[in-house]
């Protein structure tokens, strides 16, 4: 006999297992071992969030009430999946090329990155999904109640509510922990997806086990089962054609318009080829899920007392046969179905809410928006966490307010019909270039309003949200506006009626408004991108040239993508343009690419607005429009070859120009240096000569004078030696004659030594040095003396040149794929962009810092040393001061 407490323990153990699975998956993903996590099998299993508690428990109840009709809920998705080549493949490709983060993002991005559409779809999704979440909470509490009734202590309703609250809180915790860990540029959640895949297996096994039990354990074989079906109240099937077609259509639409399905199907998709596997494997999953539904329903009707709730047959049939273990398994299956739906739906909705409602508001309130300091990622993640909690609170409140099971049981189809309103705008958007933003908005709003009026509000029951008077006679006595008999069409099922009218009016409005208007240039560009995604996957060019400063873009990108990712992106782009360093030319192509990367984190509309604040208003040029027009396709073909060639030339020319500029500058510097070095050599020489002459003449000099003159000669000679030493050092390094003395060392000790050695330069102790000793604990195998020479040079430079009122030097150690990076960042004015390229050249001194007194060899020596040690040193722009990054190669820097 399973006691209630045992059930709670089983349940908690299962939840702990879920957390562990998600945690391990995240760890593996972080370590880069994702081959297994991204297999087609996991993808297919994750699609099973389609099967919620409503289908797990409800399908049997549905079958017990209306026979075979339950199967339509699975037939629709089957048709869509086996037809993947037509629609799903295109959706997934668009999702990848445009970095789509949610279904609201897809619609907003398609129709010219319009945030209004994003908001509409988001609100529709929230309204349609919240009752569905309430339904899941209810199914979990009801299944708990089945076990509780059998226990000695009777449960009060209050305990049920407490259960729902605990379940909601636990789900919120899980979702926040694994759904908002990071702001991944492509919105993938390995932990969540793996946990969902595990839950998919649990619910399938549970339902199959119950099914096998009723056939071979209760009925005693397949033939006997068929006989029992013949003898049951379900023996005859009354096909209601309207409902049959309507529900198949609805479930087919739901498979890609439900926010949670879009999330697992498109956003979490790692590889387009997985779709091919899912195209047969997911229908097979649905097939197995529904295989035993009718047998369970028939058995339930036979063995359970009159009036037993058929929605709970999956649990109560095994219990009535004394199969406690099987019932517990079935309970876990139902629990899995409910939790996986809630988790994925909460992630999908929170992404929409944060990207389409919170971020635009935040950008609006902060006038300076994209250019102010601070990490935007934190704001986005916080917005998502709060949205997740808010969505679950809403679901819980809805559950408490409606309370009764009658209202909620019907909400599954109501919810499907609500989100299906996105269908015309979605399909129209990816297959028809003439679709416009206004058309989509009109269709969505009209369809949604019709749905609310004919199905959603009446679903609360007469007299709750809508008075019984309106239901019977229509508003203001207008007979033809009765919610369940629009335009006088009576006698059809309310759900079919609502679906028919809402989708029809939606589609009509969408086409009529689209045809009567004209898409804006931005909509045309996006439309062509979406409709012709297989022909050209290259980016649309919405940005005019040269309006943006690469450094400003880098600052903004760092705050959304994180400094490491942003720097890597910029560096890659720069090297593709044939430039060294971190700042590529802000060409329209580059800005477009950057915008798309950002869209992966904050959605297309927000990313567009943020880039727009820096790059100015986007413009669409004549060439871009030509690319859209089909007539121009042939010209394009020809000119693209020319373009490729001219691009190549432009790149070479840019490299040559850069090389030339550098050479000219260096040659000028060399001249300047030669005159300077002769000056530097002559000054000490002159004084040495003058004073040694005085000494030679041997006139009557006092002891005091003698000491003073000879010490002058001595100091001047030292200065000369130092200058010559530097020159010698550099030429030895450059000619590669240096022998390195490799030894073990620790990065923290080297930095300690370097800071101590430069302490004497800062006699008034003005410079504050910020370090993080924990991250500096890196074991090294290198020439530690040479390396500390580099560190000393960089710190000394900060002492000498940092001109802030309260100078501050930050030393940051971080791990990059190419090795350990040590950043030295001060808060001075930094180095102007035009000089950043030449500071590592010999003899370069910026301006005339006579106080600094060096000959301009320090950084050149540093570069040579890092070169010899197998690492590198570079100037890091966009850090709010002068910043240098030293990279120690990975193989020689091992973790301590």
């Amino acid at each position, binding site marked *: 006999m399973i006691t209630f407490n045992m059930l709670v323990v089983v349940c908690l153990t299962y939840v702990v297992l879920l957390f562990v699975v998600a945690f391990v998956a995240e760890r593996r993903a972080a370590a880069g071992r994702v081959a297994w996590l991204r297999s087609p099998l996991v993808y297919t299993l994750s699609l099973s969030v389609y099967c919620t508690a409503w289908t797990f428990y409800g399908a049997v109840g549905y079958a017990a009430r209306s*026979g*075979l009709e339950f*199967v339509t809920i699975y*037939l629709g998705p*089957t*048709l*869509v*999946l*086996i*037809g*993947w*080549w*037509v629609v799903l493949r295109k959706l997934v*490709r668009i999702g*990848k*090329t445009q970095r789509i983060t949610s279904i609201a993002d897809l619609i907003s991005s398609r129709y010219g990155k319009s945030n209004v559409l994003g908001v509409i779809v988001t609100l529709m999704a929230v309204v349609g999904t919240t009752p569905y979440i309430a339904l899941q909470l209810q199914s979990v509490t009801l299944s708990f109640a089945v076990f509780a009734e059998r226990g000695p202590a009777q449960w009060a309703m209050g305990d049920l509510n407490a259960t729902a609250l605990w379940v909601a809180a636990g789900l919120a915790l899980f979702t926040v922990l694994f759904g908002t860990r990071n702001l991944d540029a*492509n919105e993938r959640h390995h932990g969540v997806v793996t946990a969902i895949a595990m839950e998919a297996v649990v619910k399938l096994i549970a339902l199959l086990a119950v099914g096998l039990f009723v056939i071979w354990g209760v009925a005693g074989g397949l033939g006997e089962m*068929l006989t029992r*079906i*013949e003898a049951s109240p*379900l*023996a*005859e*099937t*009354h*096909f*209601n*054609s309207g409902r*049959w*077609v309507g529900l*198949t259509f609805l479930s087919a639409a739901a498979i890609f318009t439900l926010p949670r399905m879009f999330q697992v199907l498109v956003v979490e998709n*790692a*590889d*387009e*080829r997985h779709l*091919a*596997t899912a*195209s*047969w494997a997911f*229908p*097979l999953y649905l*097939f197995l899920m529904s*295989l035993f539904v*009718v047998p369970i329903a028939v058995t339930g009707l036979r063995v359970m007392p009159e009036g037993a709730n058929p929605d709970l047959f999956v649990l109560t049939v095994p219990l009535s046969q004394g199969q406690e273990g099987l019932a517990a398994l079935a309970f876990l299956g139902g629990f899995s179905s409910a939790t996986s739906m809630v988790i994925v739906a909460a992630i999908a909705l929170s992404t929409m809410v944060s990207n389409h409602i919170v971020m635009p508001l935040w950008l609006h309130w902060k006038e300076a928006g994209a250019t102010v300091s601070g990490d935007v990622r934190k704001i986005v993640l916080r917005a998502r966490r709060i949205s997740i909690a808010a969505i679950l609170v809403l679901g819980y409140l809805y559950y408490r307010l409606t309370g009764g099971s009658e209202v909620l049981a019907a909400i599954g189809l109501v919810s499907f019909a609500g989100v299906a309103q996105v269908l015309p705008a979605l399909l129209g958007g990816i297959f028809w270039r003439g679709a416009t933003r206004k058309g989509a908005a009109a269709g969505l709003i009209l369809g949604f309003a019709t749905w609310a009026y004919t199905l959603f509000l009446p679903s609360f029951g007469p007299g709750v949200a809508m008075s019984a008077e309106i239901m019977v006679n229509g508003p203001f006595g207008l007979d033809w506006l009765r919610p369940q008999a629009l335009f006088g069409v009576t006698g059809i099922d309310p759900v079919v009626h609502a679906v028919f009218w809402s989708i029809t009016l939606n589609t009509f409005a969408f086409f009529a408004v689209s045809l009567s208007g004209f898409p804006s240039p931005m909509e045309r560009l996006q439309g062509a991108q979406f409709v012709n995604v*297989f022909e050209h*996957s290259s980016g649309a060019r919405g940005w005019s040239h040269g309006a943006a400063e690469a450094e400003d873009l880098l600052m903004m990108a760092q705050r959304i993508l994180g400094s490491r990712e942003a720097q890597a992106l910029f560096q890659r782009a720069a090297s593709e343009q044939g430039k060294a360093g971190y700042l590529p030319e802000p060409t329209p192509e580059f800005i477009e690419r950057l915008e798309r990367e950002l869209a992966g984190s904050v959605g297309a509309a927000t990313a567009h607005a943020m880039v727009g604040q820096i790059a100015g208003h986007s413009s669409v040029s004549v060439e871009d429009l030509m690319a859209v027009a089909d007539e121009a396709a042939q010209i394009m073909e020809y000119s693209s070859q020319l373009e490729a060639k001219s691009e190549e030339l432009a790149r070479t020319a840019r490299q040559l120009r850069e090389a030339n500029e550098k050479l000219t500058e260096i040659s000028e510097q060399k001249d300047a240096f030669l005159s300077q070095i002769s000056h530097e050599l002559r000054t000490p020489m002159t004084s040495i000569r003058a004073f040694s002459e005085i000494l030679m003449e041997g006139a009557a000099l006092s002891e005091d004078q003698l000491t003073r003159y000879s010490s002058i000669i001595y100091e001047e000679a030292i200065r000369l030696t130092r200058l010559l030493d530097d020159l010698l050092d550099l030429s030895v390094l450059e000619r590669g004659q240096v022998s390195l003395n490799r030894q073990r060392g620790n990065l923290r000790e080297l930095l300690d030594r370097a800071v101590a050695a430069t302490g004497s330069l800062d006699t008034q102790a003005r410079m504050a040095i910020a370090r993080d000793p924990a991250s500096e604990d890196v074991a090294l195998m290198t020439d530690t003396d040479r390396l500390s020479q580099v560190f000393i040079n960089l710190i000394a430079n900060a002492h000498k040149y940092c001109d802030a009122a309260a100078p501050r030097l930050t030393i940051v150690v971080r791990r990059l794929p190419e090795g350990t990076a040590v950043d030295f960042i001060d808060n001075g004015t930094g180095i102007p962009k035009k000089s950043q390229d030449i500071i590592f050249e010999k003899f370069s001194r910026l301006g005339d810092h006579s106080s600094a007194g060096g000959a301009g060899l320090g950084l050149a020596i540093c570069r040579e040393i890092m070169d010899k040690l197998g690492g590198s040193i570079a100037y890091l722009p966009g850090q709010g001061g002068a910043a240098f990054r030293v990279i120690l190669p990975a193989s020689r820097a091992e973790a301590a």
Partner: protein
Amino acid sequence: MMDLARLLPVLGLFAFMLPLLGGPEGISRTATNLVYFFLAWFGLIVMAWALARRLSREGLDGEEGEVREGGDGR
């Protein structure tokens, strides 16, 4: 092959809607229907499986650029 991929859902739709025609008043035996639906369903799954294998093999050979592009998206 790609045309077949486009036709398969139409075939499925036909198979799933066919029983609506059966019986004089749209009434038929549940057990028979049950067996019919699951057989038709399974048949479709097998066809989709065969088709997916063919398509992904052709995709790897014939449309390499396209496939690789999809792979680069990450």
